[in-house]
């Protein structure tokens, strides 16, 4: 940066942002007192996810939180010396509150895996097949704007009569 820009920069630094009004300062101080009181009195109860994101129920939530934390741009874990989030439900609340769901779709994979044939008590020949359901969700972290695509798979065991006999 040349000298004239440096000097302009110094000139700008001499301009001081207007201070907070006394009224607003007083309101903020009252608010801080209230927040301190509330946190001392309130026993936190788990809340439902406002987004209803399906992947929050699983271990995927923890891995997404970890990925975001490592990826930067999310400050929740910054400079944290203490242990990470103590339980998954807390993590779910924090994560869900900070994300907007942009898209969600679910489909079944075309391949079915046979898991065996058996004869029921009623004498009916039945077949067990495993189907795979895939859910893809696109969520955006509100503050950083980071968009994350989460893909989860659920295995369903389908029990049906075997009709080929």
């Amino acid at each position: 940066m040349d000298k004239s820009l440096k000097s302009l920069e110094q000139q700008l630094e001499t301009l001081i942002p207007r201070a907070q009004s006394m009224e607003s300062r007083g309101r903020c101080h009252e608010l801080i007192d209230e927040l301190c009181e509330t946190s001392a009195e309130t026993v936190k109860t788990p809340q439902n996810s406002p987004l209803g994101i399906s992947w929050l129920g699983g271990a995927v939530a923890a891995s997404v939180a970890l990925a975001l934390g490592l990826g930067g741009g999310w400050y929740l874990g910054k400079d944290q010396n203490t242990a990470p989030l103590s339980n998954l439900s807390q993590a779910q609340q924090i994560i869900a509150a900070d994300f907007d769901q942009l898209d969600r779709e679910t489909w079944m994979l075309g391949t079915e895996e046979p898991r065996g044939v058996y004869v029921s008590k009623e004498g009916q020949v039945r077949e067990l097949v495993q189907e795979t359901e895939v859910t893809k969700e696109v969520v955006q972290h509100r503050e950083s704007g980071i968009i994350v695509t989460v893909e989860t798979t659920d295995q369903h065991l389908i029990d049906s009569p075997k009709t080929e006999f």
Partner: protein
Amino acid sequence: MDQRRDKLGPQWKTWLDESAPRLLAYARARCHSAEEAEDLLQDALIKLWSYQEERGHRPPDLPLAFSVMRYLGLDQGRRKGRREKRDKKIIQFQKEEDHWLDPTMEETEEAEILRQEVDALPDKLREVLTLKIWGGLTFAEIGKLLSISNNTAASRYRYALEQLQKKLKHLKQTNHG
């Protein structure tokens, strides 16, 4: 718990007294009036408090505070029709009594012109300039906050300075010519 609470209140109040002018300067670029900016600061305080729960409610780092202010500002802007507000804001910033930079702190004509020219900068340039000069953030922190690269943040900052310099030169020439 009471001891911790007695400690936290003063910690947050000190943090607020130190950080409020910087955060308000940034908020003013996104709000219609000084009052709205101060309301935004209060909203941010609540959100930051809940964010800091996992860290024993200690006062937050400044980049996180800016990040929350930005998000709340965007949200508020969306709700109220940001474009309309922005037009009004530019007019309003010309009034000295409602300026976000303190006019009582400097009296030179050049300082007065500078304040006006900073306001007249395009939003993107002014945002980076505000965060760098008055927010005290690094380009890396600004980049992270605005979801742009460090280089883009640095370029916008430089471009803002160049634009200001050009305008100041032009004004000086006009005045002396």
